């Protein structure tokens, strides 16, 4: 409940900021809701943002449960998406049911590897995972840009994007969600995302490894005495986090675009932090939180068109203020103290 209130406070403060740009906050709020849910087309776009946000939210959350802060989802998903595109372009002969599976597995592996680097460095070298993952984000962006422009560029386009993967890699023909929302990138990976959230809930609360992972995060000392290897769990958590972020390859490459386009992600990795925080790292809550943040992002990206003074970057302000609103749980005690002082 307090989280929801924090969310509302963050959103209201963000909307009030638009007064400085000479806009009416209520009007902006209406634009946000209308362009997020106004039509099937808008809803489809909202859902297409929701899917990667679920994956990234889960990624941030699983690291959080092990006491680690994964700011690297952005780099992990970049590496994975490029990998999926590369596999699809370089091995066009693989037949259909196998092809998406191969592409997806390769993406998962590379994403997991990119996350594992930070976990390993944390476990064995004591390096702060926040700094390492940020640096890995920059490195991933550099590698992706080189691979896209120099190795498999799209021969039919001037845009910075890879060539299209062979049609065998796409599951469009079997995609019910995509049929429901024609002309939008929404696709069946939304279903996969929800299944993954369920699986993660089972993993965390119903399996031994999940218990050990949470033990390391909530009480490292007790976990150590119980004979749980902190190092192993840190590496596992970061590898899983990387794999979950890597699932974005499913919605982006195999499900909709069929290629890696530089800058396709509006910093999903960072919005994922807000998603995880809003849901208190609960996998099932993340589904709802991702939908909420996806809607806000879709709404904010239309501000470019609907107003002359506010740009899509406004989405970042909303996200930041929501994170701050939710994170500042001490607010309540502070208020109480103030009240007491007055009395």
């Amino acid at each position, binding site marked *: 409940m307090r989280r929801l209130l924090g969310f509302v406070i963050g959103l209201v403060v963000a909307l009030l900021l638009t007064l400085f740009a000479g806009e009416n906050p209520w009007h902006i709020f209406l634009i946000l809701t209308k362009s997020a849910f106004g039509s099937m087309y808008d809803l489809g776009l909202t859902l297409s943002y929701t899917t990667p946000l679920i994956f990234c939210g889960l990624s941030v959350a699983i690291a959080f449960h092990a006491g680690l802060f994964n700011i690297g989802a952005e780099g992990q998903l970049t590496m994975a998406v490029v990998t999926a595109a590369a596999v699809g372009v370089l091995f066009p002969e693989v037949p259909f049911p196998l092809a998406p599976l191969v592409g997806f597995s390769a993406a998962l592996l590379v994403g997991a590897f990119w996350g594992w680097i930070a976990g390993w460095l944390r476990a064995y*070298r004591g390096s702060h995972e926040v700094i390492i993952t940020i640096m890995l984000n*920059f*490195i991933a962006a*550099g590698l992706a840009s080189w691979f896209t422009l120099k190795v498999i560029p799209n021969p039919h386009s001037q845009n910075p994007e890879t060539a299209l993967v062979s049609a065998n890699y796409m599951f469009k023909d079997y995609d019910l969600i995509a049929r429901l929302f024609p002309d939008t990138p929404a696709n069946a990976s939304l279903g996969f995302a929800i299944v993954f959230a369920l699986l993660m809930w089972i993993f965390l609360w119903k399996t031994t490894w999940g218990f050990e992972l949470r033990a390391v995060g909530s009480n490292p000392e007790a976990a150590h005495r119980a004979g749980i290897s902190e190092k192993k769990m840190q590496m596992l958590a970061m590898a899983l986090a990387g794999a979950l972020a890597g699932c974005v390859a499913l919605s982006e490459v195999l499900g909709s675009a069929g290629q890696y386009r530089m800058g396709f992600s509006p910093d999903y990795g960072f919005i994922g932090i807000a998603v995880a925080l809003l849901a208190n790292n609960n996998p099932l809550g993340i589904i709802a939180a991702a939908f909420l943040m996806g809607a806000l992002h879709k709404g904010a990206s239309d501000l470019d068109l609907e107003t002359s003074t*506010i740009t899509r970057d406004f989405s970042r302000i909303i996200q930041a*203020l929501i*994170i701050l609103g939710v994170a500042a749980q*001490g607010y309540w005690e502070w208020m109480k103290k103030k009240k007491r002082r007055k009395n």
Partner: protein
Amino acid sequence: MELTALFLALLFATLRLATPLIFAAMGGFMSERSGVVNVALEGFMLSGAFVGAVVGHQFASAWMGWAAALLIGLCVGALYALFVIELKADQIISGMALNLLVMGLIPFITKILYNSTGSTPALLVEDRFRVEPLVMALLLVGVLTFWLYKTRSGLWLLFAGEHPQALLASGVSVRKVRWAAVCASGAFAAWGGASLSLFLASSYSPLMTGGRGFMALAALIFGKWKPVPAFLACLLFAFADAMQIRLQGVRIGEVEIPVQFVQILPYLVTIIALAGFIGKSRSPKALGQEGF
């Protein structure tokens, strides 16, 4: 002879590029030594770079920009202090959120001021700083080293980060020490940003810090949370940056090194530095401890 010239050019480039890092690392030093984790350095730097460039252009004076960067640094630092010290928000989460907020607010304000979201208008070349920020950065390292170990308030900072209970027992408010330290941290890091937009370049361009706030934090850790070693670490990272700029377009035999490989060099060096020196680095004992 030519080699000496090349060496000197590289040395000067390293020192210039180190300036923003040094300021930001000293900002990180203030905050972390007082016990407050600071991953918001990137946001502090960005706000300093932006406001410095805007005000500097408005008054056609780099010094005015420098002063404005100081002010905005204090404000953003105070905002961060409000959240982590008073509202007890998680330090890493609020730090990242603050970065995000600054990244969103800058294009928001640019749009209102200049009706665009790109770079700010540039200063005239003769209005830019020549070496002043570099000199100030070097002075700051010296002053902080002296201040930390030789003055009473320097020891307060140390104790706030190492043993806040003791500081509390001696009748000094840990809360106030941390507030002051985090505000100073904002100011120093903002100067780091301003030295990007008023010294290395002549305007603000979007996200121009490029992760330097985090590199500065890495330099601080690499330098065991001490001013002079952190300064040396900044030089190392700046050297990687200078090499990166110099190596762009260089060929080995027939093959040109892809520019992207060269560009990731500073980030790679940062990771290697952080990973390679375990054990020797000990963080302030009460780093991240809340509730004072």
